[in-house]
């Protein structure tokens, strides 16, 4: 069938797909699908009337599924559709009806129709929501109008939605026509959910429907990524337009301090949630809380915990609290188990009247997130005379606690939205690199590599210099032959130098006299993640450096000068 369709170019034998389409239309409940075999009452008038009507169909509306039936019924008169149907759906007289038109049908139009027919024919359930189909239908429908204009128009109209699928799909033939590209600001409207207000679950299924991924093939290769230094430098230049509002928000939270203190007093613990880093807020609360009691004999004991600190352990938290509670009397050797420290703490607290305030930033940060850690913290929270204020940053943090933990925590939850960026909580550049699949690219970074090199013997430095020189010259070669400018952001681990070759160079330069020695030197680099190695297709070991070209040059410069 497919084959037949594809070479049926001169004869618009699209009857089968057409019928399918009608069936689809009717099953979709399109209101104007009545009287399919109604004879066209007056062709001439309709043809005259039609073109201006067509001009009214704005691109936006064509995009909108819910609007489509409306538009069809509103702008195209039902009689006309009946005629169109008569055109294709009655297989008995295909010749007689299509005969007058072929001169008007352009080649491009026909090919578009052919493709559309195929799309419609091959459609399956998964693709039922696809934009291409709607486009195909519209092309088929609008086939007797001045073809190119209409099709172009549609191509334009679909364009924002299918922007990513630029070079594929039925409208490929019209590609050169829209030279102008997308209008300014149109990309903000680019939306894969053209149906307007879908309920959340429908949106989920819509976006997760099977079928080809409709995103562009653009990559970040041409966009130079940020280094740590540049990130901080550039972020420093940014002037926050919402500073006042954020400050005001913070001042609103300040008003609650007295309330929180009262809640502490009454034996509750507090959990702050909401968007934004709450570290500042907690710090300010600590200060307020500290100063509030200054007029009394003893200052309150406050322990601050930063849950996001990598490598923080529950035991160290407990040990700090023990140190805060017992001061000089703390035994020099605490137990190795967190429970032991906790029990020591509990018995120490029994003889103490003053409560201890523990403030934990980001209790849901990865280091503390484990269930065992949360259970221990809950036991801490349930200890009398311990007051706990924690902050939680993630969306679903309450799932960390089951009913008994929640009971132990005895939390009051307050919305502590601050809108302050998580600057201390996350290593932004590292996180983003991991997200972009460029992890390890900046391990140690330029400074890190330079630092390690300084501590290495002369031989190793020479070897690294050799490696960098080779890599840079390799990059330069690639620069000439490859596309211009692309090599700028390319890192050293994409192209590398063959192991044998480097060894050969190294022996030539008297850096290493034996392969054994050469490998020992390389191992040192490996340990500091200063080089990468991989096997290429032929099984040869390729060595690279996880640095960008600029960084490589910088390191090389330092090596040569130093």
């Amino acid at each position, binding site marked *: 069938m497919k084959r037949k369709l594809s070479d049926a170019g001169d004869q618009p034998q699209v009857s089968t797909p057409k019928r399918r389409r009608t069936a689809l239309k009717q099953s979709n409940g399109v209101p104007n699908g009545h009287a399919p075999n109604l004879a066209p009452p007056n062709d001439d008038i309709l043809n005259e009337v039609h073109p201006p009507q067509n001009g009214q169909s704005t691109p936006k509306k064509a995009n909108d599924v819910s609007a489509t039936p409306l538009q069809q019924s509103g702008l195209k008169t039902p009689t006309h559709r009946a005629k169109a149907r008569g055109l294709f759906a009655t297989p008995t007289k295909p010749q007689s009806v299509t005969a007058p038109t072929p001169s008007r049908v352009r080649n491009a139009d026909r090919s578009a129709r052919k493709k559309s027919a195929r799309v419609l024919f091959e459609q399956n359930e998964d693709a039922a929501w696809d934009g291409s189909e709607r486009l195909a239908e519209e092309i088929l429908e609008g086939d007797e109008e001045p073809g190119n204009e209409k099709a172009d128009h549609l191509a334009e109209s679909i364009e924002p939605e299918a922007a990513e699928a630029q070079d594929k799909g039925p409208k490929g033939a019209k590609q050169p026509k829209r030279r102008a590209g997308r209008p300014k600001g149109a990309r903000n409207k680019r939306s894969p959910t053209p149906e307007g207000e879908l309920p959340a679950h429908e949106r989920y299924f819509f*976006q997760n429907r099977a079928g080809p991924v409709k995103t562009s093939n653009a990559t970040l290769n041409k966009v130079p990524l940020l280094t740590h230094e540049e990130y901080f430098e550039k972020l420093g230049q940014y*002037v926050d337009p919402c500073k006042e509002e954020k400050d005001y928000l913070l001042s609103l939270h300040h008003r609650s301090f007295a309330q929180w203190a009262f809640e502490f007093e009454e034996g509750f613990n507090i959990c702050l949630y909401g968007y934004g880093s709450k570290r*500042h807020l907690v710090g300010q609360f600590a200060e307020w809380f500290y100063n509030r009691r200054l007029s009394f004999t003893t200052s309150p004991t406050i322990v601050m915990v930063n849950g996001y600190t990598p490598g923080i352990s529950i035991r160290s938290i407990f040990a700090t609290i023990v140190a805060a509670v017992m001061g000089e009397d703390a035994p020099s050797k605490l137990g190795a188990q967190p429970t032991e420290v906790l029990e020591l703490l509990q018995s120490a607290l029994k003889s103490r009247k003053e409560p201890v305030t523990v403030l934990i930033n980001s209790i849901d940060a990865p280091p503390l997130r484990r269930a065992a850690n949360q259970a221990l913290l809950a036991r801490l929270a349930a200890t009398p005379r311990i007051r706990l204020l924690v902050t939680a940053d993630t969306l679903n943090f309450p799932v960390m606690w089951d009913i008994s933990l929640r009971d132990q925590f005895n939390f009051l939850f307050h919305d502590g939205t601050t809108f302050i*960026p998580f600057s201390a909580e996350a290593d932004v550049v590292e996180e983003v690199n991991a997200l972009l699949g460029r992890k390890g690219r900046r391990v140690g970074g330029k400074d890190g590599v330079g630092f390690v090199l300084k501590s290495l013997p002369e031989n190793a430095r020479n070897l690294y210099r050799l490696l960098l020189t080779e890599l840079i010259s390799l990059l330069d070669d690639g620069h000439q032959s490859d596309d211009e400018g692309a090599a700028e952001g390319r890192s050293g681990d994409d192209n590398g130098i063959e192991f044998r070759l480097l060894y050969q160079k190294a022996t030539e330069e008297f850096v290493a006299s034996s392969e054994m020695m050469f490998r020992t030197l390389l191992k040192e680099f490996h340990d500091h993640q200063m080089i990468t190695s991989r096997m290429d297709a032929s099984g040869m070991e390729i060595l690279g450096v996880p640095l960008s070209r600029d960084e490589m040059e910088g390191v090389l410069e330092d090596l040569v000068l130093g």
Partner: protein
Amino acid sequence: MDANGIDDALGLSNDKSQTLGAYIYQPPKHGKSAGERPSKRRRVSATTDGDDNSDRKCFVPLFNGDEAAESVQLRYDFYQQIWPKQEHKIQAILEDVDAGVLTDVLSFVRDTSPQTCDGCIPTAMVTVGSNVSSLSRLLARLNDQLISTEEGSVVVLESGDAPNLKTTLKNIIRAAITNTDGNDGYQKFLGDRAGPRLLGYDLDLLHDYVQRKKTKKLVLALQDSEAFDPGLLTDLLSLFKSWLDRIPITVLLGISTSVELFEGRLPRSCVALLRGKHFEVQEAGNCVGRIYQSLQCDPDTQIWLGRNVTTTLFENTSDYFQSPEAFSRRVKYAYMSHFFANPLAVLLASSTSTILTQNKLCEAIRNLPSFRMFCEDLVEEQSTEQVRYMLEDDEYLLRETPNYLNAGQERMRKIFQAVRIVHACLQYTQSAKKANVADLSIRALSGELAESAIVEDMVATAKTLDSDKLNELLADVRAITSSPEVDEIQEDLKSLLETCPDTAPLRSGYNINSTVTKTTVVQQRIQLSKGKADLSEQAAEYTNIADRLVTLLQVHLTETLINPQELFLHEVFLFDLRNPLKETFAPRPRFAIERALATPFDYLISSSDVTMNKVSAKQPATAILYQLYLDSGALVNIHDLWQAFYGIFETEKAGGCDDRVVMALFYSALSELKAFGVIKNSRKKTDHLAKSAWMGL
């Protein structure tokens, strides 16, 4: 921009504290905090100035800070006075509920020994069901009991304490010794022993301890038995089995599923070691109902929880497992909110004090919706003079307010009295599902009880009761309220019953046994007609008495069951705000974050242009990226995302827009979204992100 500016922008401070894991807080030197906002300093000084002598002051002055310090103190004091009373009641109920199981378990522990159990370890299995917290309460009290009688002690073990056998044993031994001797005692115990120093997990230590203390019963309680590793449990129990002749151990298992399920998980060799008894703890639901009743219906209650609060409280109890403690904490929070944030609560504290003579307080009273309603009613009653006084004369208002307040409180007590009467009457109905006090209270608090179907049913049933039941009912009602009419009715009933020779109870005319169905055949059709059976004289008299009682009840109920929201000054003694309670205990953090990111100006109240709905560069970077994210499909091309992000800044800041700065913002926004777990790297295509959260799902 100087270094300080950068640090400010990044939210970084120069101190090292942010990179430390845990540290003891020391306030910054005051020279450093010169740049602090003045508002905060003022607050600090205001609070420290205000309370030089009273160190317990936690409340802040209301009325925009204009409230008198004495009034603030009064509110606090009154809270401190009223809540402990209620807490006491709750504790009494909890103890009462636990008492049954406690005595059972205690006697089991005392009476059983390995000998009575054929050499097996005596085991008490306590199923707690949804009432999770009850077990720890039970264990604590068991521990106290055993220690006070010097019989032994309870060692509580959680699954977290038992990662492996050595650690478990060590924990058990240490817990047993510290329980009675404290941490120092444990250290001393380890050091004092003659002979070679034993390792911490040697059961010889426990043996020694048992001998020294002359412990008769050592209860090893596993709180969450299901969570223990079955293999570990087997090892542990077989070890204790072999020490059973030296260490008198009794195992107590807390089980939250069922005994059968728990047993199924254990190897048979382990089950064979145990011999015991099964105990059940009462469900939480009953407990909560009793607590609520005692809080609301008690005659000396001064403030009540309104309908919204009650509904929220009971919704929570039925929606999740909620321990009675959690329930009482919520009630406590409701009380706390009332006294903390309602300046009028001071009226409850003192009715005569001169402290009340504040302008602001009168103003506040006059602004109450209930004051307005009250005045409107007065105007309708033509007492315009009084309204004028109340509006203009502060002193008059303050003199009158306590009276009205007391009257209102009296009405509230009446309402709950009526609720109890209805509840008592309902005990005599036959219907399967009896409304509990909470249901009735909710209806009463919204003023619907008097006309509800429940009361109609109740009245109908009360009519049909026979004399014995009616007598009981009368006794119940008299226990709740004493009114001369009820006494009179009971007198009459008593005298009637005395005259009545029959031992069988009298039935009223409404009783189904007193109606007779007559069957007559009229024109070949059967006609059923109901008629009253001939009533004896006593029965007629009794019907009369029942009628009197029913009318009395009806009149009483319609009189007392008014809508409390219509009472003057109900804002003072009725706490009915759903929100602080709901949001504080059942927050919606995901919604809050989504809202903050999707519509950031809900939070950031903008001074310039409030109606900014679409994405703009004025919003925080993460919010912009999140909105783009919402628009995108399940798979996102990072390059295009970046282009779209950049486009927003480009279009708005014509010319002066550094793309690297925007890139830095893009970076920070991306990393934050990643930290929230809404995006992750996708392997399907290069440089693509996979979306992992949908708004509103």
